């Protein structure tokens, strides 16, 4: 898409992007041509969906198998009070359609699984992992490494967030380099048990949306090779260098995962010994 393909309405809508040297008409056209699959329409997925839609990402896929509950509304800001009981993908898609007619929304009211991720995720330029469980997180990581698809990972716990960008085409690490397998079930309490500061996924999801926009436009330095750890209570941010692990089971020198069929994506996301 050339800059001439931005019509008058789009030049107006995206004018604050278009006038930036770093984005410009070409960057905006790249966003309009881009496609992103957002996995999870909860706390993290809400701001991701909102900002990617506002930025004019041309095709936005949203995957979630949950319905909106009243206890979600303290942080999942893409949903409204009247949406309680409605599938999250429906209310998120309605929000996008209402915000920006340039965006085509595709919804998948399902839980991503090894058997379905190929069909759902194929054709998207970038995946954004805004899920709430380790099984989906390891599935997204392994799928992206095996298919060479950029992935933004974000996760939260009470007051803290972790964000990293995985670009399998580069020489940086993947999620399994950092955490080879999930913790034993039950060792890490979930949001329902521990609570979560409502604004936290807003901050972390916005970091993910930023990284996705950078991937689509090629702007700046990606958050690859470093894990960003945010602490809302301390109001501190640390970025820790992370290196590709030669022992990584999916991207290491003698990787043992070459197909999603080999992994049990529940509990610890382990691979059978070979």
């Amino acid at each position, binding site marked *: 898409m050339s800059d001439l393909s931005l019509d008058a309405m789009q030049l107006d809508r995206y004018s604050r992007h278009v006038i930036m040297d770093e984005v410009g008409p070409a960057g905006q056209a790249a966003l309009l041509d881009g496609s992103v699959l957002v996995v999870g329409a909860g706390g993290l997925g809400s701001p991701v969906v909102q900002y990617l839609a506002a930025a004019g990402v041309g095709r936005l896929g949203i995957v979630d198998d949950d319905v909106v509950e009243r206890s979600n509304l303290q942080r999942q800001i893409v949903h409204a009070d009247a949406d309680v009981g409605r599938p999250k993908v429906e209310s998120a898609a309605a929000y996008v359609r209402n915000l920006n007619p340039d965006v085509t929304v595709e919804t998948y009211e399902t839980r991503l699984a090894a058997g379905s991720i190929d069909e759902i995720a194929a054709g998207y330029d970038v995946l954004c992992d805004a899920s709430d469980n380790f099984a989906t997180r390891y599935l997204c990581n392994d799928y992206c490494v095996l298919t060479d698809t950029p992935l933004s990972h974000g*996760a939260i716990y009470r007051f*803290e967030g972790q964000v990293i960008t995985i670009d399998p085409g580069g020489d940086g690490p993947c999620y399994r380099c950092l*955490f*080879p397998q*999930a*913790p034993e079930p039950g060792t*890490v309490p979930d949001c329902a048990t521990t609570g979560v500061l409502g604004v936290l996924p807003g901050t972390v999801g916005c970091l993910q949306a930023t990284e996705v926009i950078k991937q689509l436009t090629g702007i700046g330095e990606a958050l690859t090779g470093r894990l960003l750890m945010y602490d809302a209570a301390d109001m501190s941010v640390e970025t*820790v260098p992370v290196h590709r692990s030669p022992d990584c089971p999916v991207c290491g020198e003698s990787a043992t995962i070459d197909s999603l069929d080999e992994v049990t994506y529940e509990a610890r996301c382990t691979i059978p010994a070979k």
Partner: protein
Amino acid sequence: MEWKLFADLAERAGDRHLTVDVEPGERVEDALHALLDDHDDLRERVLDEDGQLSDGINVLRNGSEIHTQQEGLETTLEAGDELAMFPPVSGG
């Protein structure tokens, strides 16, 4: 020597910042055991059934991961070192 703990590790230890009585010249492993000696809940979380550091637990010395960038638990401590330990989190 000071440890900084993240996420549920801090909750198990009861604090995000903990000081252990370990001297320069000792190893990261000594600082780890000094920490765990006082915190059984944390020991159960970060060590596997063989007493080894669990796969998902990352230990940093001065912001750098000890296994990939240093000498692992054998790394020698120096005065003023900062140690940190973090697990994966999954909330969304």
